[in-house]
């Protein structure tokens, strides 16, 4: 995942590299997602997530578009 200044820059970069447009989030959205995704990463008890748990994280982060379907 890369960082861009604007949607226009994303479009230009995707076209030049022949890539799908994908989806973009604001920094604030990604910070909220990061806290949900990584808060327990250093814990002994963290053994990864199953698909249901991944879907729940996306839902809690407000990522409900088709792009985030599991």
């Amino acid at each position, binding site marked *: 995942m890369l*960082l861009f200044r604007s949607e226009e820059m994303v479009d230009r970069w995707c076209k030049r590299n022949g890539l799908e447009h*994908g989806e973009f989030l*604001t920094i604030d959205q990604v910070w909220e997602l990061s806290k949900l995704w990584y808060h327990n990463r250093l814990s002994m008890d963290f053994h990864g997530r199953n698909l249901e748990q991944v879907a729940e994280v996306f839902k809690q982060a407000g990522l409900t578009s088709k792009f985030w379907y599991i």
Partner: protein
Amino acid sequence: MNNETLLWQVRHFVYNHFADTIHPPSVEQTAQHFNISTEQAGELYKELNDRHSFFLEPETLTIRMANPFSGLPTDFKVHANGKTYFANCAWDMLGIPAALHCDAVIDAVLTESGESVQIEIRDGKITDPSGTSLQDQLLVHFPLPFARWYDDLVFT
């Protein structure tokens, strides 16, 4: 200790080694820590790679990524706890302070424009060290949906 217990202890050791030193432990360091053979530590590394707990360089036992930490320098530097970490991507640059539960200053390079930007995490919130509200404009691009993230993780 059964193998499953040891497996998750190795995962925990790798992540905390990254957090403490900014580098992943070599397979020899891990073997020495757990008083096991290098071969056994290597098998545990491969198993954790297969389970997506961390990711090895192809055909090696060198850890490339233990997300959010990167074993290689990147355009996403995270200054936290008196250390400078490298994050794998624009998501993981925020994942490091989230994982460490600490404040951080992030130096990142924008794709396409090549600009350098600084983002600060303080008291659990993103602040604006430049006073330009730049972070309000920044976007993180996710090129692929989740189902395809692990097809080519370096690209993702």
